[in-house]
């Protein structure tokens, strides 16, 4: 182990108002399986992508084999022997498995004609080791769209291996695999390690990390918190590295109690004792989710990102196909079949992807605000009065302190925080009884974040049932009265007010027993 194969130092990357990487370091040697760990938003994926060339860092140096590497795009990364596999697949469904594996390095004969036979051989060689994952038969000539999600993921890995990488990045590559497929993949990774390949491994399943990896680098807030030998480390030590020495923060309920028990805690003025009861909710990505929320309560959804939290909110809003289960609001079943019905029943969803799901970028702020509630103000549910719509929109702009030029401007002219306030405001005008918020402060600057927190609290104080998914553990600590920890589509733990802390959220997200963390 003379020169390390990979050295990354001082890597910085800023997305708008968010510093994703703030001087991260990573050193790894050949013939190693190196885990990259950290809580949500710590910068794992960004660091992976920096290496793979899909993200260009603002600053920092990357050395491969001691020589400084300039990675300006995925092609540079390929040329340096770096291949990456992400959870989001780059498989083209209409192409065959063979075509997918050799995509970008199709063997050609003279005059640029494709050499089909060589392509098939090359794909076969890359996939051969995974035969067991395909129930014994390699589907070389089948279209990739005909494969199951796990099989597609394996094809993605084979595609990376066909590039004969020196460094292989596996970012949540096991998330959609069955147990047997994981075993096959791990065998292949161990073979690669024996051949001197460096494998960078990210997974939300900590047991996989301990089973497969030699060392681990832990990131926290975009910085490297430490690198440890996994054989000499326990989970407790990992959590300590991930959480750091963050001051213990009192959960919201305790603070509210101290401030004044009279107003908020005793229950809402408008609709007394409303409760939302969810029983056995099951969809493609959720398994048997049950819980109860009172009005005036903020229920947090914690856990690692993408474990089904967004899906749960979408399902409660009638936006997902519900296989089984029901939701009951105040003793009446909540329609889960369509967003229209959910909205009419008093449910509001502030979706996670503002641009794609939440707002109408080219339309005026006025329409964006009016849309969810305009039928209430319209004559015969059809004719709108300009003054009424302007009045409602202006009231909301003032109440949420949205910074706008004119109501007629397209909503896309606003900053991210103000756009999000418009999305929230459109629902407040509809006076919802259940408010579902999916990562409402993502990509929002600090000042607007605080204001959105105040809005969320205000909603609960006014007697709404609030369910909040957040990828930011600090946000959950600050806002939630209770947190449900979601892991692979089920609720694995419920933390009450006293138990909510960043440390506890992280250890629960990684599914460590409560005894092991303290």
């Amino acid at each position, binding site marked *: 182990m003379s020169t390390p194969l990979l050295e990354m130092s001082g890597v910085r990357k800023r997305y708008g108002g968010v510093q994703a990487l703030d001087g991260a370091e990573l050193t790894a040697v050949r013939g190693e399986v190196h885990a990259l760990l950290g809580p949500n938003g710590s910068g794992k994926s960004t660091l992976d992508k920096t290496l793979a060339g899909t993200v260009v860092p603002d600053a920092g140096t990357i050395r491969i084999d001691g020589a400084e590497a300039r990675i300006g795009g995925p092609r540079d990364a390929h040329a340096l022997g770096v291949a990456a596999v992400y959870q989001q697949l780059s498989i083209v469904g209409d192409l065959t498995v063979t075509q997918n594996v050799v995509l970008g390095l199709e063997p050609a004969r003279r005059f640029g004609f494709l050499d089909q036979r060589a392509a098939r051989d090359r794909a076969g060689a890359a996939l051969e080791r995974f035969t067991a994952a395909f129930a014994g038969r390699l589907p070389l000539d089948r279209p990739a769209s005909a494969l199951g999600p796990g099989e597609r993921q394996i094809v993605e890995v084979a595609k990376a291996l066909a590039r004969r990488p020196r460094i292989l990045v596996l970012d949540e590559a096991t998330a959609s695999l069955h147990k047997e497929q994981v075993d096959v993949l791990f065998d292949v990774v161990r073979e690669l390690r024996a051949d001197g390949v460096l494998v960078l491994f990210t997974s939300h399943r900590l047991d996989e990390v301990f089973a497969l990896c030699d060392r681990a680098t832990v990131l926290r807030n975009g910085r490297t918190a430490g690198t440890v030998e996994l054989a000499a480390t326990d989970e407790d030590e990992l959590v300590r590295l991930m959480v750091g020495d963050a001051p213990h923060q009192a959960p919201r309920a305790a603070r509210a109690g101290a401030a004044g028990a009279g107003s908020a805690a005793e229950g809402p003025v408008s609709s007394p004792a409303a409760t939302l009861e969810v029983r056995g909710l099951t969809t493609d990505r959720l398994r048997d989710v049950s819980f109860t929320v009172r009005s005036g309560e903020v229920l947090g959804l914690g856990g690692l990102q993408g474990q089904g939290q967004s899906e749960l909110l979408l399902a409660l809003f009638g936006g997902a196909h519900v296989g089984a289960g029901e939701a009951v609001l105040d003793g009446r079943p909540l329609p889960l079949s369509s967003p229209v019905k959910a909205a009419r029943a008093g449910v509001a969803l502030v979706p996670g992807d503002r641009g*794609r799901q939440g*707002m109408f970028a080219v339309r005026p702020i006025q329409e964006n605000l009016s849309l*969810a509630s305009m*039928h209430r103000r319209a004559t015969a549910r059809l004719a*709108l009065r300009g003054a009424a719509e302007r009045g409602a929109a202006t009231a909301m702009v003032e109440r949420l302190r949205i910074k706008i*030029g*004119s109501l007629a401007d397209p909503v896309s002219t606003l900053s991210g925080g103000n756009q999000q306030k418009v999305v929230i405001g459109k629902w407040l005008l509809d006076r919802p009884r259940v408010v579902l918020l999916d990562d409402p402060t993502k990509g929002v600057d600090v000042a607007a974040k605080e204001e959105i927190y105040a809005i969320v609290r205000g909603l609960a104080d006014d007697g709404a049932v609030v369910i909040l998914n957040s990828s930011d553990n600090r946000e959950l600590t600050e806002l939630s009265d209770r947190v449900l920890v979601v892991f692979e589509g089920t609720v694995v733990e419920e933390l009450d007010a006293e138990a909510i802390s960043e440390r506890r959220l992280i250890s629960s997200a990684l599914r460590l027993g409560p005894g092991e963390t303290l």
Partner: protein
Amino acid sequence: MSTPVVDTPRRGLTAWRPGPVALAGTVAVALVIAGEIVSPGFAGYGQLVNLMRVAAFLGVIAIGQTIVIIAGGGGVDLSVGKVATFSAIIGSRVMAGDDANIVPAVALALLVAAAIGLVNGLGVTLLRIPPFVMTLGMIGVVQGLILAYTGGQAEGRAAPALTSLVNGRVILDLPGLLFLWLLLGLLAVWLLRRTTFGWSLFAVGANRTAAELTGVRVNRTLILAYVLSATFAGLAGILLLGYTESVFLDLADQYMLPSVAAVVIGGTLLAGGIGGYAGTAVGAIVLTVLQGLLTTLDIGGAWRTVVNGVVLLVLLSLYGRQRRLRS
């Protein structure tokens, strides 16, 4: 903390750029002036009224086209021309030149048109057939219905009251048709800008996923858009019947593509979500004046079509540039 949140608008900082409606209007005026230079008398009052009268039919057909295109998702209604023809044929046969039959004739014609639009809308939403394919196929179906209904020979004629409503001079020597167009145009503008349907329509066109997640009834809005499109086409057919008094089997067919062109020239985005009827109306005038000018120039029919196409391309590429500049 009750500071005023309304900043001063930023518009003053950027140079004023003409919107598509103003641009189309300028083009229309320029074409009229060009016509007057090339052939004095082109811009005479009587001549202009005549041009407007021709533009009115296109303008009414293009109301529905505007609505469907704003709905986005590749929305377009290619069947408007055929539907207008069919409506005129039904109207003519039921009226049979008798004023007493106007109401049932118009009602039946519009009902059939609306039904055709309903089928278009159901095909596009429930069966998820692309609008282009659905409405193109509908042309064939309506053509078949026309042949079955007429047996190849259109019958009847317009009721005198309809003819005088369309052609009769009201004030300033303007035909009633122009006032009807104005009325329908105002109705369209109101529908788009001051109704829940209009706002839902723009929302669906701007971002269908977000519309769904905002509780907008997306399918209902789309179906209604196609029903309205066919109904306005049917109305245009009735007006055309009043103008020509008797019908033939391809009366309004040639309006299919110009109706789309008028919408696009008027600044409505083919991708949906942005636009309005005022622009479309001006677009219809531009197309008509251009036709008139080319006719006046006395170019042969084939070359007239070529020049027409080239001018359209130039106009549309100008809009494309403009939109890039603004974004």
